[in-house]
């Protein structure tokens, strides 16, 4: 599994689509994105296991900035960060995309 992370609007989907030469349809079939929105503290390990069945998993970094005052938002943000760590553990390859530029954090470059 290839795990792609990076800030909001940083070009994560575009990067991996170009790197693997995927059509829009192929990308839809092989990738899952915005997985930070799925993070639910209930069973993150099981969620990470399920997501890791996909070839490409994409998450947006949301852990920067001020810790939210609202307890629901706070626990969601925490869960999203933990989910990202669990996904990176399960991934063969981890790439962070910033300003459209990829940086390899684990494994080998996708191609």
């Amino acid at each position, binding site marked *: 599994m290839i795990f792609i992370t990076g800030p909001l609007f940083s070009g994560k989907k575009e990067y991996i689509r170009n790197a693997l030469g995927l059509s829009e349809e192929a990308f839809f079939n092989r990738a899952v994105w915005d997985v930070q929105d799925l993070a639910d503290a209930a069973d993150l390990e099981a969620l990470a296991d399920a997501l890791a069945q996909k070839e490409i998993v994409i998450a947006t*970094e949301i852990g*920067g900035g001020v810790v939210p005052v609202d307890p629901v938002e706070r626990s969601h943000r925490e869960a999203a960060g933990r989910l990202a760590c669990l996904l990176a553990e399960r991934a063969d390859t981890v790439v962070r995309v910033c300003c459209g530029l990829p940086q390899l954090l684990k494994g080998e470059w996708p191609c």
Partner: protein
Amino acid sequence: MFTLVIGGSASGKSVWAEEFVSKQPGKRIYLATMQPYGEEGFTRVKKHREQRSGKGFDTLERYTDLAHAPVPAGSSVLLEDLGNLAANELFSSEGGGTEAVLEGIEFLLRRCDNLTVVANELFSGGRAYADDTLRYLRELARIHRILAGKADLVVELVCGQPNLLKGVD
């Protein structure tokens, strides 16, 4: 040479960029884009001025329309910062939107020998913002991707340490 320096607030990006540009040849221009509002704004401008003193910069203040900025040909320009410039172009009455930002940068790239742009990493704190803010983030991110694509060198500052994203330092 075109360099993009990105980092969060107080990541050390200004100091790094100033040191970097102070080693570049020719006339050095500090292109300030922040319109100072109130006491905090002026204090901030003062801090940056003191930080720069002795590094051989002439300061040029310009808040919008960089495509007509009186920048000397062949100079080394440090533009600080892109987040302010984009906000001025997107939200002020005399602003020309994202295209004005990009045209301004294109003009500077043609005009000067070295351009260094300081940019703000604002994109890791979620997306629970008002529509205007989200539009600003979306436009700013697009500008970042375009400039990163053109740049010879892209450096992300983390705790004052440069993380090279593109090019060879």
